[in-house]
């Protein structure tokens, strides 16, 4: 069987024999998806079974992901040992369908990028699954929730391992669908339903551009596979062609396609013009916010950009950059500051985190734009851990405060919820980029360093530094409101159950420890993604300007923390009281609180246009088309009346007569049906004898 499979592959695709794990990689997304299917068939009451199914399926995926990761590492070690290029893309491709001479291929890929993402998604996902068991314990739609979560995890893992832009797009859309379903999970709440719709439609805007990009890529390169032994669409052969075609506006075809794909990524990752859905998405259950809208799905956009990075950077002069990357950089940097500004003036605990997520995604995009795959991906991974931690911490706080989400009605929780407080603080310090001990510092530092080295323009660098200041400030504000001071809510808070705090602790550990694999002294993570050997040396710190930069960013963080402490520290203002910042700079507060009027802007432009267009369409429908339809209906009614007259008078009489005859004949035949089995058997046997006799008689010469 094994041999046959291999031969089949060889004959149809030309893939060489692959390791066991590569051939079975598809199981990683398939198992949670199958689990989702099974859970969908379970009754709502079977809570334990459904959660056990979901968790065990994702554990299985995690196990396979770890095997895949180890496989990648060992392969890399082997290749490095023999002095070969360690950037191996293990692919398994197969033809989905043919039309004419064209063939659409699908496939999956195992390379360092995918392997790291696999481990991250399945690990964080698993922790959040476990957390959800506690968080959703009393929800009556528990089973449905786990069905969606499993489906999401499967689709997200599918995005990660796709080797075809088309397969990626399919999984991408399933991810979008589950996001919609989960945001609107409490669809009885009008706000949740509206938020779900908003998320779906807004990301759809980006996806249309994405799809255009896919079509363009297919028409000009003839394949949608990323890697196909030198013939994939983002391998040098195809890139050389793409980067020489001109698409107008000074762009090459590669650049234009990259920008279109980036539009899709921007929609998913909440980049600047399309970021509006992400804060609203916090209407969903908190584990969803943590899983989808902080750790994994929104990172899918970043992952997509990292995946098609060769396309983005195609045709760049040595040491220079391309139009596409510049756009990515500026959009990212602008988003980072823009969202951080808004986050300063929000009062909903999850909304602050949502804007913070948008801002951090901007960082990742900027990092990708300026520093390459490794820089952006490192921040993605560290962010996934500490942001999931923050969201789960927020969920724990909300759970403990009896579904209260307004930070002005909390306070003093460090006494009531010590575990949550400690882990949340770790997450907050990691997010702020507190020096040395927290992973956020190293990943953010990498981005800043890349921005500083980016020769052409310094704008993004200053924006990002300002963003870092704001990040430290608003996080301090939030922590002060929630955990310090005294309790301002109604009922007293309580600590969450073990099943919720355990994932928090694990995530907190990683939020601190993950920084170790990406320090300048031992850039192991970057080495893996860029195919270099990882060496440990303290000289990594001795790069020119690095020390200065680290000092600057540390100072900025301390400045932010200090500012926050000065304005909010231990003060516990009353809920009605105006915010400290509002008191000092009221002219700035208003616009920030109202999210810089982006929603309103969309309301009066895009949505107003659609309203007007809907009214026009409605009028057309009622007056013009409706009239025509009514006319046609009237004509047919007339015709039907005529037919009825014919039927009653002519046809019915003849039919009745026929029926009588048939029923009489039937009665005659029915007398054979004695109802006794042996009678039938007897007739059958006689008939057989007769037939055989006839047969032999007729065949005689």
């Amino acid at each position: 069987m094994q041999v046959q499979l291999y031969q089949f592959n060889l004959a149809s695709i030309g893939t060489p024999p692959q390791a066991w794990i590569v051939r079975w990689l598809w199981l990683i997304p398939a198992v949670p998806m199958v689990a989702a299917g099974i859970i969908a068939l379970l009754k709502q009451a079977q809570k334990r079974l459904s959660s056990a199914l979901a968790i065990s399926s994702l554990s299985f995926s995690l196990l396979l992901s770890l095997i895949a990761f180890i496989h990648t590492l060992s392969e890399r070690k082997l290749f490095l040992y023999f002095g070969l290029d360690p950037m191996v893309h293990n692919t398994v491709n197969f033809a989905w369908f043919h039309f004419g001479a064209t063939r659409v291929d699908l496939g999956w890929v195992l390379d360092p990028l995918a392997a790291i993402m696999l481990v991250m998604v399945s690990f964080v996902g698993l922790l959040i699954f476990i957390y959800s068991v506690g968080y959703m314990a009393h929800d009556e739609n528990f089973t449905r929730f786990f069905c969606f979560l499993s489906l999401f995890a499967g689709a997200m893992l599918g995005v990660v391992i796709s080797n075809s832009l088309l397969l990626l797009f399919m999984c991408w859309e399933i991810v979008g669908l589950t996001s919609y379903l989960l945001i609107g999970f409490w669809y009885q709440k009008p706000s949740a339903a509206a938020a779900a719709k908003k998320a779906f439609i807004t990301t759809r805007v980006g996806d249309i551009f994405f799809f255009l990009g896919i079509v363009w890529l297919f028409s000009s390169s003839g394949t949608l596979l990323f890697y196909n032994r030198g013939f994939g669409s983002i391998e040098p052969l195809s890139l050389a062609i793409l980067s020489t075609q001109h698409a107008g506006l000074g762009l090459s075809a590669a650049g234009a396609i990259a920008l279109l794909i980036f539009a899709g990524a921007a929609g998913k990752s909440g980049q600047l013009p399309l970021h509006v859905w992400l804060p609203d998405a916090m209407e969903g259950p908190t584990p969803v916010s943590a899983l989808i809208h902080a750790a994994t799905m929104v990172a899918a956009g970043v992952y997509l950009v990292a995946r098609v990075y060769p396309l983005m950077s195609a045709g760049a002069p040595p040491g220079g950059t391309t139009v596409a990357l510049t756009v990515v950089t500026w959009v990212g940097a602008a988003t980072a500051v823009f969202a951080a500004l808004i986050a300063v003036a929000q009062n909903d605990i999850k909304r602050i985190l949502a804007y913070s997520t948008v801002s951090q995604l901007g960082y990742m995009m900027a990092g990708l734009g300026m520093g390459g795959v490794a820089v952006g991906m490192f921040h993605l991974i560290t962010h996934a851990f500490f942001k999931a931690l923050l969201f789960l911490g927020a969920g724990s706080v909300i759970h403990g405060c009896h579904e209260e989400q307004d930070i002005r009605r909390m306070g003093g929780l460090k006494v009531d919820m010590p575990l949550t407080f400690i882990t949340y603080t770790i997450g907050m310090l990691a997010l702020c980029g507190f020096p040395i001990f927290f992973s956020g510092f190293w990943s953010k530092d990498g981005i800043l360093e890349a921005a500083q080295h980016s020769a052409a323009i310094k704008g993004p660098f200053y924006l990002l530094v300002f963003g870092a200041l704001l990040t430290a400030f608003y996080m301090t504000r939030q922590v002060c409101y929630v955990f310090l001071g005294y309790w301002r809510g109604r009922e007293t808070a309580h600590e969450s159950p073990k099943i919720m705090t355990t994932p928090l602790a694990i995530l907190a550990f990683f939020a601190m420890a993950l920084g170790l694999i990406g320090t300048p002294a031992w850039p192991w993570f970057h080495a893996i993604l860029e195919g270099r050997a990882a060496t440990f040396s303290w000289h990594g710190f001795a790069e020119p300007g690095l020390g200065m930069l680290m000092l600057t960013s540390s100072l900025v963080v301390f400045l932010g923390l200090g500012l926050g402490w000065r304005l909010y520290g231990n003060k516990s203002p009353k809920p009605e009281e105006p915010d400290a910042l509002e008191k000092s700079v009221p002219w700035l507060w208003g616009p920030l609180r109202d999210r810089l009027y982006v929603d309103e802007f969309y309301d009066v432009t895009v949505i107003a246009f659609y309203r007007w267009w809907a009214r026009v369409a409605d009028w057309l429908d009622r007056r013009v088309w409706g009239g025509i339809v009514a006319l046609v209906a009237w004509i047919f009614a007339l015709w039907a009346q005529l037919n009825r007259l014919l039927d009653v008078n002519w046809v019915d009489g003849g039919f009745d007569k026929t029926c009588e005859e048939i029923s009489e004949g039937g009665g005659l035949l029915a007398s054979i049906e004695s109802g006794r089995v042996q009678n039938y058997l007897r007739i059958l046997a006689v008939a057989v004898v007769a037939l055989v006799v006839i047969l032999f008689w007729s065949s005689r010469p």
Partner: protein
Amino acid sequence: MTTPLAGYLLVAALLFAIGLGGALVRRNAILVLIGIELMLNAANLNLIAFWRYGPHPEALTGLMFGIFSIAIAAAEAAVGLGLVIAIYRHTNTAELDKIDRMKG
């Protein structure tokens, strides 16, 4: 009887006739089923005899038919006897000439 094949075929024919006779003359539904099983077995014997003495024994056709029909007979017996039991529950008898509710 010149050939062994004819011998087997005649035995099968006789067994078939015995089975048919049983199915026709007995009143109990279970015995009718037994008769039918005998007929089926007679057919099996034919299949295997043809396989053994036929022109292409290496093609396994007759043997496979035989094996498949043995397996199908198991299904047939299960369903048939299940039906007999169900009928017995409804009519409180397994005598076939008392069961004629399907009379047309």
